[in-house]
Structures are given as C-alpha cells and as structure tokens.
C-alpha cells in the first residue's frame, strides 16, 4: 500500500511546497472569493430575515467560483512547464496521479473556505461557528474537487482553458452545489434536521460516484 500512496502524497507535498513558494493559487483565489462576498453584501444589503435565505447561495458562489480559479491553475502549472509528462513517466497508475492532484486541490479549496467563512460570517452577521457546517462543507468540497480535478486536466489541453473549465465543470457540479446550498440554509436557519438527512446522503453518494468515475476518466484524458 505504501507503494500506491507514496507517490500520491509526494505529489501533494510537491504541490504544497510549490504553493508556499509561489503563492500562485491561494492568494488570487482568496482575494477573488472575498471580492465576491463583499460585492454581494453591498449589492443586496440583506435584512436579518433575508440573510438566511440568500447567504448560503452567496457563500457557495464564492467558494465554487474561487475554486474554479484554483482548479484552472492546478494543471496549467504542470502543463506550462511540460511537467505533466514528468508525472506520467512515474511507474504508477494514472489514477494515483489523479488522486495526488485531487488531494492538493481539495486542500487548497478547504484552506480558502476556512479563510473566507469568518469574513462572510462577519459581513452577513452570522455565527462564526455553525454546528454541522464543517462536515457539509467538506462533503461538498470533496465532490467539487473530484470533478474539478478531472475537468481541469481536460481543459488544460484546450486553447481557451480558462473558459473551457467552467463550461465543462459547472453543469456537472450543479447538483452538489444545490445540495450544499440547501444544507447550509438548513444549518443557518437552525431548522429541524429533517432536510439535512436528505442533502447530506445525496452529497455523500455524489462524492462516492465521482471519486470512482473521475480517476478512470482521467487516465483516458491525459494520454494523447
């Protein structure tokens, strides 16, 4: 098992080290997501009653739009310097390369969300800690990163990759974004957990399906 997981964690560690050096992804994504939240806050100026209704949508728009920026850079950095072929020359399955890149994308998205949420909570006058929000956010981010990693690898081979990724990615992740928005709404409003038991299993199933489908599809995508 060490033989399988070793390269996956090597890719993750390499991506973290590169990010610490360049701050290419985190800074731009955090700034972008913050701008989205601030603009929505001023544009809508929500009343306390309206907050519970609009806040979950705004939060997930910021998370996913910021996420797309980061996902775009993820494979662009490999492709620009020809390093994708370097990864592909390793004596490991293509799925291991996928999982290495996926873990990096997931980690960066979680970090961005952890930075964004406190600002969002202050601007929208919400509690800093909403019980149950962390597992919901992690489940949704897992699915978004799983799908995004695959489409990022696909889009990187196209000329207009910055446009191509959102065009390919959003139609597929709409279900999990809807589920995340609904579940976050339930948590913010403090409703009974009945609705949550519908959305959380839905997100778990989405994650499970795409964590099986995407690595298999990835192998076909990256080989010319």
């Amino acid at each position: 098992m060490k033989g399988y997981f070793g390269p996956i964690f090597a890719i993750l560690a390499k991506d973290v080290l590169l990010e610490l050096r360049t701050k290419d992804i985190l800074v731009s994504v955090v700034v972008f997501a913050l701008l989205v939240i601030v603009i929505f806050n001023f544009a809508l100026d929500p009343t306390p009653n309206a907050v519970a209704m609009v806040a979950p949508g705004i939060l997930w728009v910021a998370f996913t739009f910021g996420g797309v920026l980061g996902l775009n850079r993820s494979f662009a950095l490999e492709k620009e310097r020809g390093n994708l072929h370097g990864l592909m020359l390793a004596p490991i399955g293509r799925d291991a390369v996928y999982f290495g890149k996926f873990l990096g994308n997931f980690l960066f998205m979680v970090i961005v969300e952890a930075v964004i949420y406190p600002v969002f909570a202050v601007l929208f006058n919400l509690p800093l800690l909403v019980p149950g929000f962390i597992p919901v956010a992690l489940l949704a981010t897992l699915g978004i990163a799983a799908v995004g990693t695959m489409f990022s690898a696909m889009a990187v081979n196209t000329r207009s990759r910055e446009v191509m990724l959102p065009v390919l990615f959003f139609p597929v992740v709409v279900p999990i974004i809807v589920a995340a928005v609904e579940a976050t709404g339930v948590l913010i409003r403090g409703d009974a957990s009945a609705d949550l038991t519908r959305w959380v299993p839905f997100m778990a199933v989405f994650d499970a399906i795409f964590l099986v489908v995407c690595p298999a599809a990835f192998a076909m995508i990256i080989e010319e």
Partner: protein
Amino acid sequence: MTNPSTVESAIRIQGVQKAFGRTPILRGVDLEIPWGQVLTLLGANGSGKTTLIKIIATLTKADSGRVVVGGMDTSSRGPGVRRLLGVVTHDAFLYDDLSGRENLRFFAKMFGLDRVDECVESVTEKVGMTDRLDQKVGNLSHGMKKRFSIARALLHDPLILLMDEPESGLDQAALRLLDAVISDQENPVRSVLMTTHDLERGLELGQRLAILANGRIAYHQSLDDVGVDVVREAYAKYTGPPS
C-alpha cells in the same frame, strides 16, 4: 516476475501507426533494440522521432501496432514499463520554483526509491551538478537544466534510456558526461534509444543506427555490419546531406 533483461529484446516495435488529425506521422514502424545496445535514431524534422519516443514511454498511445518493452506490452503494463525507462526529452520535466535537490527528491519518491538522498547525490555527481543542487532550477541555464533532467532520468538506474536529442544545449564538458552515461560500462545490460541530428555522434555512440523517413524505418543496420560511408550515404539519401 520475470527479470525483464532475460527476454529477447529491450524494445520491440511492430507496425506502429500514429496520426495527428488527418496527418499520418508514423505509418507502420517496426524496430527492435537488443539489450545492452545503443540505437541511434536519425530522421529529418517532423519525421516522427519524438512521437515514437513518446509512444514507447507510454505518454502517447499508438493508433495501431504493438510496443513491447522488457517483455511487457505498453498498452496493458504501463507502470511496469515505466519502471524500466529513463526518459530525457526537450522538456526537462523539472519545477522551476524548486531546487535541483527538491526536484530530484520528488521524482525519487514517485519511483518509490528507498535511499532517496543517497540516490539524489549519486546521480547529481554523475552529471556534475553537485554544487548547484540547492539552487532553484528556474535560475539555471538551459544546459544545466538539461543536466538535472538527465540526473532525473537516471535516478532509478533504469534498464532502458530513451533520449530525444539529449545533446541540445549542452557544452563540451556536459557532452562528455552524457557520452559516459550513454556508454555506461557499469551497466552492460542497459539499452539506449537516442535520437539525434548529429550523424557523427550517432556513429560514435551507437552500435546500431536507424533512419526514420516517411513514417517508416527506412534504414536499420548494425554498425558492425556496414562501413561508415554506407551509413553516410543512406543518411544523405533519406534526410539530405549532413551539414
């Protein structure tokens, strides 16, 4: 698992075809490289040398045909094939923002090597880059990057080296190091497939020579069997006279 070097050939290519869109690049390539031999592959620009290397290295899929490396079919045994290969191409496959050491450590881990630091220092010494090991790769010259790229390819002591115009950008000292790597006396089993435009280097380093023209192997000879003049004639015929 069978020891790869006990099978008949290091690389066996049968009827490989590849087209990009409607443009055929390889139209049925057949080639065999025995263990322990250096094969120099010559060909004009656009003749498909790089594409062939990519197919052998499992970076690109052939449209049809079969490639067997160390007894393993590249289409079904990718990871096993890649473990046997060290690949040097036009791209260094190195991260500019990491140092040479960090890059080599990363690739050593990708190959699941045990004594990572020992391996890194040993290959760096081979390519004469020990004093640049902790410098960011992005700050190095093209030739120095190429040396680290060769070190990366040698990290796991591969049985087969695929080298696509490895001499480009190297100074005389580095060329001597490269020659030593290609004709490594410590590893008599190692096979090398090297593409080049430099016929003289090809003649000097290779035991076999092949010319790729019109998508096929137009000429393939052991250099023990033919005279240099015959090879020069064939080279001029298929790729134009040497400069």
